[in-house]
């Protein structure tokens, strides 16, 4: 990861969708390890507070730029804004935005389902392609994105979200294949349950829930080690291997 960085400069990372709790934890972890950051998010005030927090605590560069996942036409601008803020092309980009809605709502209201697909999948394709082009030309950089274990197998309880994340996972697979030849690493991160608003108040087995800080440490490690795929925490690999191994005639009868 640091190979492309000149001696004087700290490594740098752009985080898309930076106001989520996961993204915040990741940003803190990178900053603590001496990375410069640019945070991109829709809620400008919240984003600026988070950026200030990182500057105060860690003394690294941390900029805040606007980003709206659904404003596809503005996605070109993210790269420009990031470069202007940082003074250089970032060494990597981490996609953290996502959107989960109640499955029943997604079934009844196509508007909701479409929003889930657009944010989790379409927006990712739109914005990551721009960075893919730049990194490919430079023969440097990495692209990491938060997909989900929900994308590994469709289940009745959240299959619209799962389908969008499955699309993202497949997209990243293809992108990895393409960018490998340019030396650009693509990391698919699949978090299980992380203690954030997404599952807050839901009945989830506590043993399976990771803190955002733990998830952030695992994400940092996956990026540093140039992994292709990373379950976060790692034991989800085991759970998902079993979930995926169940034969469909059995799986379809389960209430999952």
């Amino acid at each position, binding site marked *: 990861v640091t190979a492309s960085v000149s001696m004087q400069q700290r490594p740098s990372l752009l985080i898309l969708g930076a106001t989520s709790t996961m993204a915040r934890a990741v940003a803190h972890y990178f900053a603590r390890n001496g990375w410069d950051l640019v945070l991109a998010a829709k*809620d400008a*005030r*919240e984003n600026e*507070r988070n950026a*200030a927090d990182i500057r*105060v605590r860690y003394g690294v560069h941390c900029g805040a730029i606007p980003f709206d996942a659904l404003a596809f036409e503005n996605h070109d601008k993210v790269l420009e804004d990031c470069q202007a803020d940082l003074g250089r092309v970032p060494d990597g980009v981490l996609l953290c935005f996502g959107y989960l809605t109640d499955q029943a709502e997604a079934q009844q209201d196509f508007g909701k389902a479409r929003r889930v697909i657009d944010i989790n999948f379409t927006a990712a394709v739109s914005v990551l392609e721009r960075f893919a082009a730049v990194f490919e030309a430079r023969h440097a950089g990495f692209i990491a994105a938060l997909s989900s274990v929900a994308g590994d197998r469709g289940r009745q309880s959240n299959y619209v979200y799962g389908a969008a994340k499955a699309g993202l996972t497949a997209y990243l697979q293809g992108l990895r294949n393409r960018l490998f030849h340019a030396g650009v690493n693509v990391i698919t991160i699949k978090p299980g349950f992380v203690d954030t*608003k997404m599952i807050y108040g839901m009945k989830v087995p506590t043993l399976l829930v990771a803190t955002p800080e733990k998830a952030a440490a695992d994400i940092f490690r996956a990026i540093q080690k140039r992994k292709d795929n990373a379950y976060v925490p790692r034991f989800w690999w085991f759970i998902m291997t079993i979930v995926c191994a169940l034969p469909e005639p059995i799986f379809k009868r389960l209430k999952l």
Partner: protein
Amino acid sequence: MSEPFSVQDLSGWGRLSTVPCHVYRPEKRRALQTILTDAPHTLLARGLGRSYGDQAVNANGGIVLFERLNRMTAFDPTTGLLECEAGVSLAEIIRTFLPRGFFLPVVPGTAYITVGGAIANDIHGKNHHIHGAFSSCVESLELLTPDGGRLHCSRNEHADVFWATVGGCGLTGMILCATLRLQRVESAWIDVSYYRCRDLDEVFSRMAEHDEHYTYSVAWIDAVGRGKNLGRSVLMLGRHAPASSLPAHMASDPYRVPRRRRPAVPMNMPEFLLSRPSLCIFNSLYYYAHPTADRRVPIPTYFFPLDAIGHWNRLYGKRGFIQYQFVVPKEAYGIIRSTLELVSKEARGSFLAVLKAMGPAGGGMLSFPKPGYTLAMDLPNGNGLHEFLRKLDSLVVRNGGRIYLAKDITCTPEALREMYPRLSEFQAVCARLDPNRRLQSDLSRRLRLREETL
């Protein structure tokens, strides 16, 4: 979209009783606004839950956790001014700024409290006789008022709201952020002079003799001691170690102190731990382990001894405990002796009892500190604890003292009104900011803090 909550049984740090609350945990400022506007019940902000009694619980109402609203938004190293959100813990501030040579001017006995909680209780520390309470380092604060508005207040701006919020138990609004003035320190070490004192008279006279010469002063008292051992204690006087006094290996990085491991109490401890024989053994060990001597100790060891043990409240078993704390004017120091006599006679004492002299009161309408002596004791639950505390309360009231609301669970509305003469000023501010009584706690209802007449 409404904000998610989870229904949890919450209690104070003393774990005397639990009550069901709708617990919200906003992760963004906007979510907090939504909760305040939309939640279908009364609300109360809660920090790290270190208040002992029922101050930070709201039975069948809403509780708003501030742990994710913890950003430090500005710091100026020339002035030491830190602007941070209410959910930032003192531990985070110390971890971030002690290595840069800054320390909080006032810290309590634990670093695991939030800035919001420190303000809402106007907490005090071992230097109250010199520096006053926490509010002395609060330059200004921003309040999310119950009507959803935001109010910037300080000593000069909405001063009445500022002084109602300081020590106001979270009832004037939710503190969004505060500007604190950190102080420069030359090292992360405290030079401590320990005085082992045979009895109360000795510790009182040592305090009178030394307090003004030391920034920090506190005495641990053996609350189990009886007869000639009544009030035997260890006075711990401290001041920041100047960098020039450090030996070479420490002077190279005066802010580095040995890391502490932090084992935790894994579960509720059995009750024999609190039996008189085991307490006598523990307290005697502690007493004899601290001979009169000078020592240099790291900041965390001096200020936060119990932070070295996670979940230390489990030591008191599943019945829980309360920490009872009161302050009485200096001339009523005899109450300290009567209280210790009562406590040891009924064998209620435990590991921890602390005595300290307090300086002048601050401006907080419901702030606890006032000039005199303050005694804090951990009292395990059981054996008619509530009746016993009522008895102590009346002793305190009769002698012009008051109890600390952060630790209270039994005080009556009548007694409270005698202890806190500025209550009506507080009520006037609350009536203006929160006419619909959107902010409530078990404590506010029990003490009828909002009722002008009983």
